[in-house]
């Protein structure tokens, strides 16, 4: 009993610390897993994905070590502000709402959103009429959530999930008629992992910029301008020397 309490008290010890305004030599990234192929665990349980590999390459270029810390999406920005990690590299779309709280790097990729439905779904195109009274799944607090809420909130039922996993489960069990998420993620999670069971509905969505912004960026705390600048320079270098293309092709093929 006494031992148990001692152990728990250690766990309770609230992590606190101080550091001088610092030059980072170790960068911790917050990431929401799984979001295949952007970030996920492979068969051996190793963390991998486009974000992870690009992030590691950027760290190597800058000359810092990096570490990945898993965090659910709806707590990912608060976690950054709380210094649980120093940056977020987790398919985060750059937009003005988020700019009020975090500092973004230059965009490193642009991926459209897309609608996915079970194969044979009666929904053929996306408009208010077709979505009337349909159940749409989105991940809570994502740009997809905001977009669907603002555009179809009046006609459709929107279910919000903490993780993409929950959402896919409810689509499989037919609780949802549609989900709206990054095309590439839906492609791997739904089209490839469940071949023949799902289909894309309607067009890819990249506009308006208010929601889909300029693409994905790495998010930093507002004051870490120097760090963001180092990542921007490294990103430019990797794009020039071909490292970026190599990683890109590994995940998305030639496009």
């Amino acid at each position: 009993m006494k031992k148990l309490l001692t152990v728990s008290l250690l766990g309770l010890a609230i992590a606190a610390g101080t550091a001088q305004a610092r030059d980072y030599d170790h960068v911790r990234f917050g990431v929401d897993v799984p979001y295949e192929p952007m970030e996920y665990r492979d068969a051996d349980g190793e963390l991998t994905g486009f974000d992870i590999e690009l992030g590691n390459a950027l760290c190597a270029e800058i000359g810092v070590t990096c570490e990945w810390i898993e965090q659910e999406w709806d707590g990912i920005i608060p976690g950054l502000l709380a210094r649980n990690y120093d940056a977020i590299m987790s398919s985060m779309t750059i937009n003005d709402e988020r700019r009020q709280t975090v500092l973004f790097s230059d965009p490193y990729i642009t991926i459209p959103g897309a609608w996915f439905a079970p194969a044979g779904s009666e929904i053929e195109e996306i408009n208010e009429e077709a979505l009337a009274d349909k159940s749409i799944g989105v991940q809570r607090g994502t740009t997809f959530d905001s977009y669907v809420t603002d555009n179809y909130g009046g006609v459709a039922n929107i279910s919000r999930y903490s993780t993409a996993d929950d959402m896919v489960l409810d689509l499989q069990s037919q609780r949802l008629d549609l989900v709206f998420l990054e095309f590439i993620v839906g492609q791997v999670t739904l089209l490839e992992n469940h071949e023949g069971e799902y289909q894309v509905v309607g067009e890819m969505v990249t506009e308006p910029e208010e929601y889909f912004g300029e693409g994905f960026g790495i998010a930093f705390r507002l004051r870490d301008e120097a760090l963001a600048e180092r990542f921007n320079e490294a990103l430019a270098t990797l794009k020039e020397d071909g490292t970026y293309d190599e990683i890109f092709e590994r995940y998305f093929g030639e496009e």
Partner: protein
Amino acid sequence: MEWFNALLADNRIFTPNTIAFYWEGLVTTTQLVFLSLLVGLVLAVPLAIGRSSRHRWISLPIYVYTYVFRGTPLLIQLYIIYYGVVFFDGIQETFLWPMLREAFYPALIAFTLNTAAYTTEIFRGAIKATSRGEIEAARAYGMSPGLTMRRIILPSAFRRALPAYGNEVIFMLHASAIASVVTLMDLTGAARFVYARFYAPFEAFLFAAAIYLCLTFAILFFFRWLEKRLLAHLRPQSG
């Protein structure tokens, strides 16, 4: 009204849109709590009578039911029902599916079973506390056991159960906050949405907390008023 408009114009969180979210959340919470309490109450009366029965084959299964539902977290009960129904083969083809596919009904079922278990025990306690004298008087009067239950035991048991039941109603209101875990946009769900979109925990959750507080007080005062009316005869006479 002007200051109110100014306040609204000044913030980016409480737009008419988000207020509408909270309003819908309030409606969902109220529906969920009211319906589960109502059905739970209807179930609890026969269950409580059965639980007080001298026949063990009646009282024991009811005891097991109340013990299990009172001894485990409502969250687990909700998960079991929400995820559980999906994995019955072919459930998607039955007439039940249009209801069960919505998060509302699995949540309603879980909440109803839960509150029925607590209410059963509350009533059982109240039935047990009926004074022997009242029952004997009824019997001397030639009342059948059924009539005694209906005319003598239940009415006085309901009154005795009132304060405890009032607490149960408040507990249920508070417990309903977990509905947001299975995607229901109740009051807490609305708060979580606003929090996730604007990263404004204080505004999002304090606003919801204030509404819950008001609801709690409303329930509290309603039951006080009810007790005053129904239990008037139990108070000491004055002057």
